[in-house]
């Protein structure tokens, strides 16, 4: 690194002092395939004299071997570092490069233009302050240009250089430049109202308007790219927002010390400040801000510290310490924008792991409300999200988490979705708002009625009433269904002969009267359970139509689902898993349904299950589909 600063030779200590206090700008290059992003970064590094002699020597030989510029230097090879990239002449993954000028330090992420690698582009963009959006002067604004400008604004970048590149190939025509700029402004109007755009005509290949203004474009009176990058204002807007610190690690070296370690995500903190631990909402006062080099009297956003509190409040990894005066909200249901990043499309209703800050929870991602067409920015219908698709959806979490909307704070509102089987990172999400708040304050004020109880579980209550002959397969199917529901994070309970006949109903026999009383009690228990917000699976022979009707009448509208497990007597008797039919035929059991006591088949059951042609697992899937259709699997 050869900086043109005489201080290096005359007074190195003074130079280092100056260098250490330079501001940092993080930027990315983005835009469509082959528009010259990597070439530009290579050029920038080269012109800023960031390339060492040995690196230059291998660049020259690599250019001849695999370059796209014949005998000349292919600057893209300075950043396209993977063998596959060099072979194909494209960028596949982000390259991070670091350089400094006399005015500033820079971290640049050169991102891939290929649509296939959009997720890598998003990785680079997520931490950037400025985006250089490259456009090939011959091609103008393409779909991919629009996609990338959409993603950069989505992720919060508000400063964009519209780099009209390859001007050498259009004879540095002002007309060509103006047309593209107009085109982009028309599109950008829809993107974000506070977007700041700096258009610059350039040739990355020939170094025009990169480090200084060039004669080729005498009609252009804006800055060179480097002028812009060195002077564009950067500030940490997180500093003036309320204090937030996700707790990463509880620091407990001995019984006398209990500290909370984390990186401050917003605001600042001083000993004596009142803080709350979210989601519990418990309050305390900051005692010390501990670091290895001594206690601090103030800590600010971006710093990694350890905090001790005056009181022994409950606080663990994943909780967030927040300003007591201005706490964050807590919720377990969100609307969010999602960028899908996996070849396997989003499976609505499936549970993914969601990691936000230091917290990992399970989240059911519901079917998208709509997708976004990156070309027109219009909403389009979407049943799922495919690789690189962006959509708006709701999520239900298995527990409440503290958050701020993404547009207020990236750290408090940005999350990733992880597939639970492959462990791949499959989605990137931005919290827009909570569908309902779950902060403690609100809970206390609220009447805890049946809908609150169901909402708390993020589900709709239902009673699945399995009826059918002894040995027809009711319990087996109910069990299979319960597993599926459980896997979706639903709270369920099964009532069957085993857990009812031995306790609550142990005084009842099998006479018709006792059978009626048996069902009356079971139906009432099921009703209480659905009031508690549970999905209850009842599996009783319940042979009489009138008793089943009585049970139906007890439940709220639409919550009773009668499932007729239709197994012909001969089949059930053939199976005779428990040997009961044999005993009944032998007269050892009296009043046995189907033998010497009638079974009245349902006439209008919600579902009829044919167990002869379906396995229990298939039957469970059928019931689950039915529940999904009826909206019973959505949040509460």
């Amino acid at each position, binding site marked *: 690194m050869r900086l043109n600063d005489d201080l290096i030779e005359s007074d190195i200590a003074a130079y280092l002092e100056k260098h250490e206090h330079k501001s940092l700008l993080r930027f990315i290059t983005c835009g469509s395939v082959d528009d010259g992003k990597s070439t530009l970064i290579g050029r920038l590094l080269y012109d800023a004299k960031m390339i060492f002699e*040995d690196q230059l020597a291998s660049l020259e030989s690599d250019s001849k071997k695999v370059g796209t510029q014949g005998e000349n230097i292919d600057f893209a090879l300075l950043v396209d570092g993977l063998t596959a990239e060099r072979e194909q002449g494209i960028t596949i993954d982000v390259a991070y490069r670091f350089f400094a000028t006399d005015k500033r330090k820079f971290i640049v992420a050169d991102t891939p233009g290929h649509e296939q690698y959009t997720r890598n582009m998003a990785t680079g963009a997520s931490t950037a302050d400025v985006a250089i959006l490259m456009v090939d002067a011959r091609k103008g604004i393409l779909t991919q240009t629009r996609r990338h400008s959409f993603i950069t604004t989505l992720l919060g970048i508000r400063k964009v250089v519209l780099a009209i590149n390859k001007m050498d190939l259009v004879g540095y025509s002002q007309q060509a430049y103006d047309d593209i700029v107009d085109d982009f402004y028309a599109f950008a109007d829809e993107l974000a109202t506070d977007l700041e755009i700096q258009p610059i005509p350039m040739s990355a290949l020939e170094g025009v308007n990169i480090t200084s203004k060039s004669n080729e474009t005498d009609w252009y009176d804006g800055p060179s790219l480097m002028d812009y990058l060195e002077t564009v204002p950067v500030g940490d807007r997180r500093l003036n927002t309320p204090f937030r610190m996700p707790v990463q690690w509880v620091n407990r070296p001995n019984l006398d010390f209990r500290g909370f370690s984390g990186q401050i995500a917003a605001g600042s903190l001083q000993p004596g400040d009142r803080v709350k631990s979210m989601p519990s909402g418990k309050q305390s006062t900051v005692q010390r801000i501990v670091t290895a080099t001594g206690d601090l009297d103030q800590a600010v956003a971006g710093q990694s510290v350890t905090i001790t509190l005056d009181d022994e409040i409950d606080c663990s990894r994943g909780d967030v310490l927040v300003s007591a005066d201005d706490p964050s909200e807590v919720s377990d249901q969100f609307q969010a924008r999602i960028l899908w990043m996996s070849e396997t499309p989003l499976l609505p209703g499936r549970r993914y792991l969601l990691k936000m800050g230091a917290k990992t929870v399970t989240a059911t991602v519901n079917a998208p409300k709509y997708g976004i067409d990156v070309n027109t920015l219009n909403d389009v219908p979407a049943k799922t999200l495919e690789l690189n698709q962006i959509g708006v959806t709701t999520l239900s979490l298995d527990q409440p988490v503290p958050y701020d909307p993404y547009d207020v704070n990236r750290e408090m509102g940005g999350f990733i979705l992880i597939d639970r089987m492959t462990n791949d990172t499959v989605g990137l999400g931005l919290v827009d708002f909570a569908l309902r708040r779950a902060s403690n304050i609100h809970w206390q004020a609220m009447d805890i009625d049946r809908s609150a109880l169901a909402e708390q579980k993020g589900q709709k209550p239902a009673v699945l009433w399995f009826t059918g002959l002894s040995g027809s397969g009711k319990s087996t199917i109910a069990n299979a269904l319960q597993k599926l529901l459980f896997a979706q994070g639903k709270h369920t309970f099964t009532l069957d002969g085993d857990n009812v006949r031995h306790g609550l109903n142990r005084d009842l026999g099998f006479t018709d009267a006792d059978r009626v009383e048996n069902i009356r009690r079971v139906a009432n228990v099921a009703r209480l359970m659905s009031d508690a917000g549970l999905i209850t699976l009842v599996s009783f022979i319940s042979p009489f139509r009138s008793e089943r009707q009585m049970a139906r009448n007890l439940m709220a509208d639409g919550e009773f689902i009668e499932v007729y497990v239709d197994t012909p007597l001969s089949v059930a008797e053939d199976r005779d898993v428990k040997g009961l039919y044999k005993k009944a035929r032998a007269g050892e059991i009296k009043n046995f349904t189907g033998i010497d006591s009638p079974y009245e088949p349902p006439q209008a059951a919600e579902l009829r299950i044919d167990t002869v042609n379906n396995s229990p697992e298939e039957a469970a899937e059928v019931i689950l589909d039915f529940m999904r259709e009826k909206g019973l699997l959505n949040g509460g």
Partner: protein
Amino acid sequence: MKTLTHLDRLEAESLHIIREVAAECENPVMLYSVGKDSAVMLHLAMKAFYPSRPPFPLMHVDTTWKFREMIEFRDRKAKELGFDLLVHVNEEGVRDGVGPFSHGSAVHTDVMKTQGLKQALNKYKFDAAFGGARRDEEKSRAKERIFSFRSAEHRWDPKRQRPEPWNVYNTRINQGESVRVFPLSNWTELDIWQYIRRENIEIVPLYFAAPRPVVNWNGVDIMVDDDRMPEELAKTAVTKSVRFRTLGCYPLTGAVESTAATLEDIIQEMLLTTTSERQGRVIDADQSGSMEKKKQEGYF
């Protein structure tokens, strides 16, 4: 209000990364190579958990060809800071007499370093290993994630890296898989030196210029560190004032002529030099793209 300097920010980011591993991984280890980057990483680990001790051991994959001063420094440092130090040597390689003079840099590095590392990771079943690599070191490193996923065979697949937005790291793996974690990803060579200076971090004296016996081997000056150097070669030794920009196996580490005896001198020299720090590493020069290949095979 206090404004953070660049080094403050880098430090904070690294502490966050190190803590995230401690909190989420079951059996992490810190790979300690005894060089300047390792020294910084160790210092950051101490800071991340203060007043607790870092909840993981250090591990050094010893190729048996490191500078003697490095080994002394390693043992003293681990003891001083109270770390458990695991030293792993590929005993099969030792048995076969593998070394840089007899087998060349490529075979030696593969057997003693890459295979040795894999053996050690398998032996202790580590699910996460910190490494001190930086993105500014080399062009394929510039592409690597901070949490870099490895298959059960320790392979890196550069075409299938996990997206890594913001500072939200996915640490989840299946049985047998692991992650390599690079807390210094965003540091440059200059940042490292400035931080060493600011924090007064002790480093192996080989980084400072001193009169040392060197011989010219394959075009680079290497130091005569013990009597395993072939006699013919050792005979040609001359004493020069040299220092090292990176440290590794002594026969594979090129010395630079220098009189830089203080940190300021070193930084000044670095800022004025026209070659990169990796130039002195014999192993990298083998072929363009060789680092990526080695990494795919499990090299750090």
